[in-house]
């Protein structure tokens, strides 16, 4: 277990952060929409200018 400054600078597990964020509807929909758009942009839509 870390003590002193090292402990204060600790960060949390990323999966817990994601669970917290994804528990909010607005954040969940925003992240899902961005993920969906990545698929749309690269596989369906015109990806770069002609």
């Amino acid at each position, binding site marked *: 277990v870390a003590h002193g400054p090292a402990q204060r*600078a*600790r*960060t*949390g*597990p*990323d*999966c*817990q*952060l*994601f*669970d*917290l*964020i*994804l*528990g909010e*509807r*607005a954040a*969940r*929909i*925003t*992240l*899902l*929409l961005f*993920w*969906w*758009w*990545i*698929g*749309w*942009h*690269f*596989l*369906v*839509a*015109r*990806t*770069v*200018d*002609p």
Partner: protein
Amino acid sequence: VRAAPVDGAVFTLMALALLADALGLVPHVGALAAPGTAPVLAGAFASCLALAFTPRHGIVDGIVLVAVGVVALVGGWAGVRPRADADRDDEVRDGHHRDGTLRRTGILWAAVAVATCLWELTSFVLGRLLPEQKAQHPAISDLLDPALDQLWFRALFAAGWVALGVALLGRGGHR
């Protein structure tokens, strides 16, 4: 700049839906029961195959993206019911929440996300302003576009994209 009317309409529509929800104008919907592993895996595998092995920008890719988008956004809007072990996870998380570690983690990830967006925006704008030097300022789309025309990279991209979506939908849609 290429027109992207579908992208614009989808983003606007979802922003308006979230705004209406924040104002309390959207009727409450209950969380969905999480689907079983078998249908999720079957859907994910079928989507992967279709996206990888049919022509890029083709009609099949379009149908898959529309179907996946509807399922993901409707499912994501409702959220899923907590798992049996979710309460214990929540306790651990609340502990990290109180001592500020989650906040620090969030700030670091937000910094990474904002820096990536600024980098991409800078590359895109420089590519527009200095077209003769575009090769020195490629946007992510410029880098991935040629690779995605190759089957092996498209298959890899499709698998990664589908896996990320399953992970996003499967995590934390409770509370």
